[in-house]
């Protein structure tokens, strides 16, 4: 018998089992069939720990602010709203357990979505099975929609797959003498990031921009040095990265270490995290970094100025420091409020019908959903300029010209 190895295996297996069992919590909820003006609970599985915890916390801020506003206006169709959050530890198995518990044990009246396509996919299977409407702020990858789920609604301006379309349109709109000839791609194997990169690559290659490097890396990667090495070795004009915030920061630091400065750098997420991102990479190093976005703090969209001022009053900080995740979560509440008014009901079946048929005004702008819950709008290209993120493309939404080539990192 080989005790040491078997003991270690026991440890690993036990830890995994405990991880699955951990993090659930429950408390008495409200009736699944709310009566007129009866208080209701809205259940959400959020990532308060694990890889998505930063985004999860921002979602909570957005949801809480919406609930506060909604209750101040008299509630959702008169029902006082209480939010109930359960931590999913960024786990695809825990998120399933959480929604099952929220619906069957806590008997919440409504459910809102978690962070990321990765968690939305298994979560939406559960909520659909129970007939719940599932408006969600952060699951917009193609794999979210290709299962034919009718009760899911992605509350962002555009399907995630199209997020980098505005970037590719800008690149291809440049005069031939300035247009980048090569691009290097590196992306997490995540349903949020990889579809964006793949679509951008397809569009740029069709436009004549040669692919100098294309690499996919596991989402659990912590050592980004070899990945950055490959991007640098490709020596491409444009670098397009499928990142969440930690790897977005890690890539930029690796580029600084190697004194590497592409002409343009766009990351799928990370630079949209406002002051948090600037603190991590250094304010001077944000200059010129691009990110697709459906929302920014100065956007002239319905209720956005109020949202920004209320957010700062409640949580502190500056407009530039507000995470896009919070605005997306707030929009989920806005959409549900309007759907409930249209349907004159908060029953899930009525909400599903109403969400498929209306056009909704949110802090992210106007949006409507197709039969699979895909929004019909487009994302914008945002760039860090002088310490703020500003829309730079398409010209109809731009408030500044894109900085190109991007200034060098400060080193």
């Amino acid at each position, binding site marked *: *018998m*080989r*005790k*040491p*190895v078997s*003991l*270690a295996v*026991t*440890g*690993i297996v*036990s*830890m995994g089992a*405990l*991880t699955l069992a*951990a993090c659930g919590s429950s408390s008495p909820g409200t009736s699944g069939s709310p009566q007129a003006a009866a208080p209701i609970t809205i259940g959400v599985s959020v990532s*308060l*720990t*694990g*890889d998505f*915890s*930063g985004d*999860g*916390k921002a979602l909570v801020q957005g949801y809480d602010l919406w609930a506060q506003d909604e209750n101040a206006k008299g509630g959702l169709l008169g029902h006082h709203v209480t939010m109930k959050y359960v931590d999913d*530890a*960024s786990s695809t198995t825990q998120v399933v357990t959480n929604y099952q518990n929220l619906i069957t044990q806590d008997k919440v009246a409504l459910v809102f979505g978690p962070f990321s396509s990765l968690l939305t996919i298994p979560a939406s299977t559960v909520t659909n099975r129970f007939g719940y409407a599932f408006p969600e702020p952060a699951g917009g990858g193609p794999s979210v929609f290709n299962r034919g789920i009718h009760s899911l609604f992605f509350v962002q301006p555009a399907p995630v797959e199209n997020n980098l379309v505005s970037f590719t349109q800008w690149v291809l709109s440049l005069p031939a003498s300035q247009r980048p000839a090569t691009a290097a791609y590196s992306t997490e*194997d995540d349903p949020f990031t990889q579809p964006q990169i793949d679509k951008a690559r397809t569009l740029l290659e069709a436009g004549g921009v040669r692919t100098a490097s294309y*690499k*996919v*890396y*596991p989402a*659990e*990667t*912590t*050592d980004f*040095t*070899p*990945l950055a*090495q*490959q991007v640098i*070795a490709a020596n491409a004009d444009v670098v397009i990265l499928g990142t969440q*915030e*930690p790897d977005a*920061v*890690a890539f930029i*630091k690796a580029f*600084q*270490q*190697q*004194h590497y400065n592409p002409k343009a750098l766009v990351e799928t997420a990370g630079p949209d995290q406002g002051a*948090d991102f600037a603190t*991590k990479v250094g304010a001077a190093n944000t200059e010129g970094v691009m990110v697709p976005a459906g929302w920014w703090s100065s956007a002239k969209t319905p209720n956005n100025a109020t949202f920004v001022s209320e957010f700062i009053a409640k949580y502190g900080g500056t407009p530039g420091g507000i995470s896009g995740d919070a605005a997306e979560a707030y929009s989920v509440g806005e959409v549900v409020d309007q759907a409930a008014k249209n349907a004159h009901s908060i029953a899930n079946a009525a909400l599903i019908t109403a969400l498929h048929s209306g056009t909704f005004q949110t802090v992210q702008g106007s949006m409507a959903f197709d039969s699979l819950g895909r929004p019909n709008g487009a994302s914008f290209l945002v760039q860090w300029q002088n310490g703020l993120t500003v829309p730079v493309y398409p010209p109809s939404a731009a408030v500044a010209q894109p900085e190109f080539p991007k200034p060098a990192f400060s*080193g």
Partner: protein
Amino acid sequence: MTLILEAVIFGILTGGVYALMASGLTLIFGVMGIINVGHGALVILGAYLSFALLRSANVDPFVSLVVTMPAMFALGVVLQIVFIRPLKEDREALSVLVTYALALGIEGLLGYLFTNNFVQLTAWYETASFAVFGFHIAYVYVFGFGLCLAILTGIFFVLYRTTFGSAVRATMLNRTAAQLVGVNVDRVSAIAFGIGVSTAAAGGVIFGMTNAFNSGSHYDLISRLLTIIVLGGLGSLRGAIIGAVGMLIIEDVTAVVISPVWASFAFFLLLVIVLVVRPQGLYGIRVRERI
């Protein structure tokens, strides 16, 4: 070719950091025969302690070790006395549960105190670098590797050149026999646990300077550390070092030569081959038990 050379060099440098973190884990196993699945959380705790000193008093992360390593040593001694020592029966299995609970407690506390946003330790040498062989090496990797070498050398010195080290090694070889010859194994265990936890503080600083982290970052970390000490041989310091450096080199070279997707697979393939040939790991001691 430059890419491969660069990958090897970074593999060695970052492998040194993992070696330091894994050394504490394997030392604790060697002395007490327990798997401390809370070790990753203790690494993150060490990183947060340095982060708190950086944020509140602008203390350089490496300098902060003067405070955090003794503090973490004391914490380790207390944890061993309070949580591990009372486990008298079925200690090995129960210790997994106890140390996992410890990890969850640390994670919850850190999440409460620091929120769950990712943070990172910063200093001038974090992005500053120097050129060598046609690429650049950041000073943080070199300083971190130097610190790891210094601490690991210190641990080896204590283990092989001091009376206490003899007691530790005797306990690692046979806990019961060590007791019979007069070694105070409870005291040795508490101090060894303290040393293991204090190395987590040092590892945490370098990890926190080269990675964004939050209170939940320990899950990925502990799984990597456990595989390292299984490869090196449970309870073997030398094995932890070879295992860590080997893992990082294999992963980094695979990532640049083949694909990042295959990086972990390549390492685990090697791990399986090693365990088939040497079930006790590279430097582990094969233990026979009466059935």
